[in-house]
């Protein structure tokens, strides 16, 4: 699932991922993302950090705190994140990966594949 308040970014990311054979859902906010995750099984979320309402860090933290969503991996998307931002993504929110914008397609697809292949959830 692609979570971003910018429809243009959601469109580009969806096209990149669908081109690689993934089934993609979209969400325009953290709140909507959590509602969808309640109903749909999602393996991976590409999460924008800066969104109105619940930001990407808070949304990811909610996902991590929900036992029913432990199979759902999260990659954060940020614009030129500094070390503090990246640390917050991993340590506070509990993300599984991090990609800086502007996004290079090869890097995005390879990181998505790496996280899906390697981050295995027990139980």
């Amino acid at each position: 699932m692609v979570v971003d308040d910018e429809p243009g970014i959601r469109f580009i990311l969806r096209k990149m991922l669908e081109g690689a054979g993934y089934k993609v859902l979209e969400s325009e906010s953290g709140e909507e993302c959590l509602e969808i995750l309640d109903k749909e099984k999602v393996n991976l979320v590409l999460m924008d950090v800066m969104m109105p309402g619940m930001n990407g860090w808070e949304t990811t933290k909610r996902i991590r705190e929900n036992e029913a969503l432990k199979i759902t991996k999260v990659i954060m998307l940020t614009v030129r994140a500094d070390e503090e931002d990246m640390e917050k993504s991993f340590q506070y929110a509990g993300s599984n990966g991090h990609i800086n914008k502007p996004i290079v397609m090869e890097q995005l697809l390879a990181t998505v594949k790496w996280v899906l292949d390697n981050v295995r959830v027990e139980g």
Partner: protein
Amino acid sequence: MKELLHDEYSLIIHGPPGVGKREFCIDLAGYQLGKKSTVLYVTTERAPNSIKEVARNIGAVFVGERLFFVDYASWSTSKKTGWLDDRMKIICLQNPSSLRDISMAVKTISQTSTGRLNVFFDSLSPLFLYNNDEKVVQFIQTLIAQLRSEGGSIAVTLQEGVHPPSTFNSLMYMVDGYIQLRFLDDGGAIKRQLRVHHLHGKRVQPEWRGLEITEKGLEVL
């Protein structure tokens, strides 16, 4: 570039998935094999046969009596542990959270092989999924010290974007050299680039240079 890894040296090769870290690592390992050095290739994401295939694709000579594998990638599919294949010299590990097993495998090969041991760790990143970061950093610190004391060397690949900066900085602090790889979107054409960030004891120019991976090998432009 192939002379980057010499005795008692430790190196991190860092970049996003798919950028060519494995090819770079295999290229360095192949060069060491060509110099009649002993190579231990610890593979955590691909089975040894798959590594050999990558080597063939880049024209690297990746065979010989002095090549050993620790297979940390096949644990979910393989039922056997220990010396899986004597001919190919593979030690297969079953427990992804046991760093001690890797240390023991390195020690075993170090004792059974002749000459200095050059370890290639491709990649370190999956270890962090089954162990806490501090434990993995300590493990690498101990491994570097052990190899250094025996005159050996180690090159480690690390995925960009899947580790907190604090963990990455801890690793950076303990190695002698740091090679960075990246993708560059050059007006629609995706290119690979490499820079030698630092190399302890050597003067380097930390500028980005093109990296091409072909069936004839790796070329830094």
